[in-house]
């Protein structure tokens, strides 16, 4: 393919440019792998500069960051920063992945933080600090990010000398949320784990002025299940595919696929074309059900329950499709490293085609009714605005970024599976509001129907599983990625001993999308908040393979009840009023 030569050229250009930009002794090693990825080792002291140049000069987006414990190998920890180069190279089919990594010695587990230069690295570095005990010096926000409240200090679960089944004694410590009394006139509304509007365990704190949300604080780690540790010590590499499917119950198959791709990339396993098509079909089926779920929930939250019921009725047909193709409604269990486990015979494909036909008709009709409902539109339009600029700065992914007018789509940017053969055009809407994001999803439902039908029609022959020539190469590294319904998932794998992974890092789409929530919810009413959260389509369990706490500190001011009521009334009667508290 012509695209490959182009991609290689670009990759070389990137490496040369980086060599020019950095001091001559900064780069230790450069390894090009395949057509679109390069591993660059830099000296520890030059790490921030190197990442800065890759991120800002070469136009990259930070896709993931991984810390590995390689003390048993060579006495070092390693830090990998995975950057996808996307700016100004939209036309190139395979955009380069640049992995900048460095070694951190075991007896001095410290490194210069890159966060001051690349803000996107903030959470990743705090996570590394908590789970591996590597100290990012100069990090602007060095508080604990990960681990439960009652976890003992100085115990790092991702280190190799911690065993996965250990249950350290509890050291109960109340978690300090933001100060109980915040600025004048601001009321805190806790939305705790058990709440009408929170579908999953997490804690939101809404800070409201009258009815208006002025800020949001969230803290989640109720779903931390330690799965990366399990994969390293209990699961074999083929079992991990099923574990990956349980990262998330809605977009699990996308995780499973990304994991398998990462291992296949590390070990240079060729996946048969038919398997790639079957993966694509299942990924799109998953997108169908997930988007319909999200559209249905949006209807439900705007009290338009007809839409919810109708979309869920249609969605049941998609579940039937999944059942016919994989034998399970939600967990498909189709992936193994090297291909898929279940073929699609002709009669099954025919059944699916018939179902999809009715789905298309019914979905179009339902969409017509929903979008012509004035009440629904009023709730969605001009609500939860995420400006294009902010979306870009936070490098959000999925329908969220596409709803803000940016054509980012992994299926297009880094074609994987059968998207190499079936080119996808990103569905972009420029409204930046909840409605735009819903419309992106609606358009993607119709696109996905096309893709599934096309792929079923064009299924190539040949085998579906290639597991004969698998040779485990220790410490081989691989990147797997795909476009889940919520956006780009990136998995990073280092192959280890005893057919286990040495390190597996899951970066789910929602991880990148959370920081956008405060921007989207400010200045809207409390009733809008659940809808805005739903439009982000968050997946808590995805994100919370690790933990996120993001707390901003504010001055403590005592406020009398009377004053508070007064302020609330005043503000609610005057929607144009902007308090100076912010």
């Amino acid at each position, binding site marked *: 393919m012509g695209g490959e030569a182009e991609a290689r050229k670009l990759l070389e250009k990137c490496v040369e440019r980086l060599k020019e930009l950095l001091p001559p002794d900064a780069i230790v090693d450069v390894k090009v792998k395949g057509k679109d990825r390069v591993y660059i080792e830099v000296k520890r002291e030059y790490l921030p500069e190197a990442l800065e140049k890759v991120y800002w000069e070469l136009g990259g987006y930070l896709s993931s960051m991984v810390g590995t414990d390689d003390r048993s190998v060579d006495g070092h920890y390693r830090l990998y920063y995975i950057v996808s180069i996307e700016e100004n190279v939209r036309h190139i089919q395979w955009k380069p992945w640049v992995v900048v990594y460095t070694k951190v010695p075991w007896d001095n587990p410290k490194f210069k933080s890159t966060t001051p230069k690349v803000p996107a690295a903030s959470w990743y570095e705090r996570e590394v600090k908590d789970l591996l005990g590597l100290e990012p010096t100069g990090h602007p926000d060095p508080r604990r990010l990960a681990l439960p409240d009652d976890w003992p200090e100085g115990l790092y679960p991702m280190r190799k000398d911690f065993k*996965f089944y250990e249950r350290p004694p509890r050291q109960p410590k109340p978690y300090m949320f933001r100060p109980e009394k915040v600025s004048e006139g601001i009321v805190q509304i806790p939305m705790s784990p058990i709440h009408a509007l929170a579908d999953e*365990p997490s804690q939101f704190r809404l800070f409201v002025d009258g009815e208006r949300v002025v800020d949001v604080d969230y803290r989640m*780690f109720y779903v931390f*299940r330690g799965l990366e540790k399990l994969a390293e010590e209990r699961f074999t590499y083929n079992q991990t595919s099923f574990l990956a499917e349980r990262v998330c*119950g809605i977009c699990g198959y996308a995780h499973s696929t990304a994991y398998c791709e990462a291992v296949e990339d590390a070990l240079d396993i060729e996946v048969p074309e038919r398997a790639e098509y079957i993966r694509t079909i299942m990924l799109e089926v998953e997108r169908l059900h997930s988007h319909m779920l999200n559209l249905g929930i949006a209807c439900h939250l705007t009290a338009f329950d007809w839409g919810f019921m109708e979309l*869920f009725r249609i969605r*049941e047909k998609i579940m039937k499709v999944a059942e016919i193709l994989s034998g399970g409604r939600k*967990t498909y269990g189709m992936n193994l490293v090297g291909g898929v486990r279940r073929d699609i015979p002709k009669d099954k494909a025919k059944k699916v085609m018939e179902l999809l036909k009715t789905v298309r008709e019914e979905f179009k009709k339902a969409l017509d009714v929903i979008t012509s409902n004035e009440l629904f539109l009023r709730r969605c339009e001009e609500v939860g605005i995420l400006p294009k600029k902010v979306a870009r700065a936070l490098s959000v992914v999925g329908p969220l970024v596409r709803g803000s007018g940016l054509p980012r789509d992994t299926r297009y940017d880094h074609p994987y599976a059968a998207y190499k053969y079936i080119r996808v055009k990103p569905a972009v809407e420029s409204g930046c509001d909840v409605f735009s994001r819903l419309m992106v999803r609606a358009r993607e439902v119709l696109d996905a129907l096309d893709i599934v039908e096309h792929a079923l029609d064009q299924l190539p022959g040949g085998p579906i599983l290639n597991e004969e020539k698998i040779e485990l190469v220790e410490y081989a590294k691989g990147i797997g990625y795909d476009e889940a319904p919520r956006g780009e998932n990136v998995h990073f794998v280092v192959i280890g001993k005893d057919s286990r992974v040495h390190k597996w890092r899951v970066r789910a789409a929602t991880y990148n999308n959370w920081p956008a929530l405060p921007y989207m919810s400010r200045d809207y009413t409390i009733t809008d908040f659940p809808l805005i959260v739903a439009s982000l389509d968050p997946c808590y369990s995805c994100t919370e393979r690790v933990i996120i706490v993001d707390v901003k500190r504010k001055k403590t001011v005592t406020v009398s009840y009377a004053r508070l009521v007064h302020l609330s009334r005043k503000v609610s009667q005057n929607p144009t009023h902007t308090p100076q508290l912010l």
Partner: protein
Amino acid sequence: MAILAKMLPQSTSVEKLGEEVKRRIFGTLKRSLYVLRVDTGSCNGCEIEIFAALSPLYDVERFGIRLVISPRHADALLVTGPVTRQYRAVLERVYRMTPDPKVVIAIGACACGGGVWYNSFAVEGGIDQVIPVDVYVPGCPPHPVAILQGILVALDVLKQKIEKVSYREEKPEEEWKLRPPLALLFERETLVKISWELYRDIMRTARKYLGYLYGVQLVKDYFALLSEVRTLGELREASKKIVEAWNRDPRIAQVVEELNKLVEKHFAQKH
């Protein structure tokens, strides 16, 4: 509660009393069952299946089962997830807040026994490690109908279908029976005496092309055929029957062709 306790016969066992109360409440109260969904760190798979159970196709509300949003309103808890370390305290609190009598239904593999994470450092490994469970609904995630059945079993409307099975081998020589396709290897005289290696190769090829499920099905059919034919020419002719039986799928024709080639190769080596 106090009145109800008086109505009941004296019972020595607290559990028994609880059982009886539960039965009477649901038998005599004759009102809707209010259900609270508690997510203790689930992957959402079970959650969306509970949502699906609300959708028109299954519609749990026709039984008067209603989702509520506060533990204080609930009669039953639908608990999902393996109980993460962080969530344990919350679950205990929710259980305490729910008024008695209450039913706890564990939904999904994680809730019933910790699922794939059962011995991880960050989870407790199932609901019954923290609070007593009345009904287990296995599945990953359970089918919406299975969830419905679980609730109805909890209310003694439906009977449970599953029970413990134990098997003990008494006479190993007599009891052991091989199943097809392996059984076909030993049962009948075939065109070529199928060696273990050939069997293995056929199995591998079928799986490589069709996966574990359809692959084994096809191999069963193919071996049945192999025991009927006498010559290689016949094999080719007869193998068309299989393709016919599989709805003339060109894909099956391709795989059968591969298998035929394997047998022929094997045959040529022998002679």
